[in-house]
């Protein structure tokens, strides 16, 4: 067990080191959320004046949505690293060594989780600078960050699984766009639930991205319904675990194929 943890950690450190050498990657990953927060947030500022909107400040309403959306996309790109390691023979070299097989996947997922936490905190800070105001302080933010991280892990696992099976960057990029963008808009990320068309409301009920937005936003409200937040969190945890298993199975099938 300790060996497995150590091996996973070596892999996480390897990915973190890569990121530390490409600081521009961090800036690029923040361009999108900044555009959403500052431009979209400004453009639709007066949307809260529509009767029935559940919040008094659009930037306060929008920030959790942007946090979760960013976490989802960031997880979606996890497969790129997997493909580049496959292409360069790095994965095969590791597989010749006595590395714990699970460490290759779990190390990557741990890295994704850490990156997601960092990203979420930066976006929350940007939201605060832009005028968002949250209740429940650190605890509320922590719930949002964890919910976003679970979405990130679920998407990272799916992206890793897909990459191991398809092994082509273009296809993975297409798949991520195809899935992630609709999921972003089929929920309460940008629009209050009460003003959504009823069919979107129905779909949103089954949208894990929406679960994370609701859990995170719920935890940042003045008097949160913790039961509701916890239930959403539980579903997210179950989903992330299931996706993680899928990634492990995909990795086993890759091992059998070499």
């Amino acid at each position, binding site marked *: 067990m300790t060996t497995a943890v150590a091996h996973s950690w*070596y892999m996480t450190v390897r990915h973190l080191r890569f990121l530390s050498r490409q600081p521009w990657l961090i800036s690029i990953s923040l361009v999108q959320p900044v555009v959403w927060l500052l431009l979209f947030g400004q453009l639709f500022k007066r949307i809260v004046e529509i009767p029935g909107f559940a919040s008094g400040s659009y930037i306060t309403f929008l920030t959790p949505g942007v946090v979760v959306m960013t976490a989802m996309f960031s997880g979606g790109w996890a497969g790129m690293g997997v493909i580049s390691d496959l292409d360069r023979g790095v994965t095969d070299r590791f597989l010749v060594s006595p590395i714990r097989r699970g460490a290759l996947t779990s190390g990557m997922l741990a890295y994704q989780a850490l990156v997601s936490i960092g990203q979420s905190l930066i976006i929350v800070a940007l939201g605060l600078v832009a005028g968002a105001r949250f209740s429940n302080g650190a605890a509320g933010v922590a719930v949002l960050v964890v919910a976003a991280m679970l979405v990130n892990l679920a998407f990272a696992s799916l992206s890793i699984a897909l990459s191991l099976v398809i092994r082509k960057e273009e296809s993975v990029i297409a798949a991520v766009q195809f899935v992630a963008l609709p999921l972003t808009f089929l929920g309460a990320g940008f629009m209050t639930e009460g003003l959504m068309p009823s069919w979107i409301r129905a779909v949103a009920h089954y949208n894990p991205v929406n679960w994370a937005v609701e859990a995170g936003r719920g935890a940042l409200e003045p008097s949160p319904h913790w039961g509701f937040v916890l239930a959403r969190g539980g579903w997210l945890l179950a989903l992330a675990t299931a996706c993680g298993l899928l990634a492990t199975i995909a990795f086993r099938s890759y091992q059998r194929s070499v």
Partner: protein
Amino acid sequence: MVRRPDRVRRAIGCVAQRSGVDLEATGHENLALQGRLYGIGGRALKSRVGGLLERFGLGEAADRITKTYSGGMRRKLDVALGLVHRPEVLFLDEPTTGLDPEARADMWNEITRLSSEEGITVLLTTHYLEEADRLARRLAIVDSGRVVAAGTPDELKAELRGDAIHVELGTPEPHALVRDALDRLQGVHEVVLEGRLVRARVDSGATAVPAVLGALESRGLAVAAVTIARPSLDDVYLRYAGRAFSQADVAHETGGPR
């Protein structure tokens, strides 16, 4: 082997034809991670990594990202990665493909040193018969996945019935006269005449030269030049595989003292 995969992994080192170097990490980081995966740590790891970097002439480049390495440096790092855990058997898949002559000579010296001084059994595959001849104690010619010939390089060459002898006569002589002179000699076969050129196979080049010269001169035939050629592995290869070179592989093995 199936039951004790971990023992096997620790006993062997593998250097794939395709490099497995992590291009985003430094040479030092590549080696240190590889060592950790084999359970080496602390001082032992430090000295092992430092030692390998020095031995392969990568000391100065140790802290550079391997993306900036030349092909020869990457190949050396590949071999070093296969050696971190002091394996008993090292598999090298075409270790010198694509290297310049200097890097190739370095690699040959290192492989010779590994099998002679460190007692590592090296199994390497190559397309270069010169390389096989130079490095191998035993070699096998593999054609379409089957071993078609195996033995020491000298054994394989000896099967081609000795050396080739080329005699250039001073003047074009009646072929009957030349043939008459040579046919009586012991150990001279397959005499072929082309104008002033006489080609034949002899059991032993060293003893055949005086006899051939004597026989020709006793009949008043002037000799302008004589050359003997040891059969090359190319001749052996063509005899056994007998078709376009690029379609087949040669595998050979240099044995350490075990």
